């Protein structure tokens, strides 16, 4: 599963994207992520799967593109 990091999250992970093997819910994925990158705990972000916002109960599959989106700041 491709995971893309935007805004301050790319600074925390020091990556713009990575491949992570995972199956399960978004909330379980968030736990995995905060274990790997502890600073994520203090961050406010939403999750998009294949360019659509999803909630914590959403189930992820291997073919998904996941994007972690801090609060928007355009314009």
């Amino acid at each position, binding site marked *: 599963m491709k995971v893309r990091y935007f805004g301050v999250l790319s600074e925390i992970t020091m990556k713009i994207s990575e491949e992570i093997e995972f199956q399960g819910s978004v909330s379980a994925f968030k736990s995995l992520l905060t274990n790997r990158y502890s600073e994520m705990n203090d961050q406010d972000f939403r999750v998009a799967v294949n360019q659509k916002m999803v909630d914590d109960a959403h189930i992820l599959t291997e073919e998904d593109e996941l994007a972690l989106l801090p609060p928007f700041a355009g*314009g």
Partner: protein
Amino acid sequence: MKESTHLITGPLQQDFIAQTLISHQTLKNIGAHSLFLGSVRQDQKDGKTVTGIEYSAYEEMVAVAVQEIKDQLFDKYPDLVCLHIYHGTGLIQTGEISLFVLVSSPHRKQAIHACEECVELIKEKLPVWKKEIYSDGSHAWLKN
């Protein structure tokens, strides 16, 4: 200057803005253009001066968000002829233009109101992030 549908690398250039306006001259049903330009302000924060903003975007999702914004505005303002959104990405220095919105309609009220709403919707919905760069080389991530 790389150009996807809505994202431009670097600041929006005056030539590009002028050309976009000129290209609308052939649309004879337009009576009003309302235009918004956002530029980077030289703010002072904790004794540091802003020298620029580095914008980044989730390009694929920008396209989805722009379509949603257009759908919403064309629905609310059915006379609109067209609506263009261009956002700069990468480093944009103080005084340079980061956002260009152009809304055109037969009469002025819809163009003016839709342009204003468009800017607010962009701030709410566009997956774009900004990193403010300071004169001492430090930076900070901003939220809307």
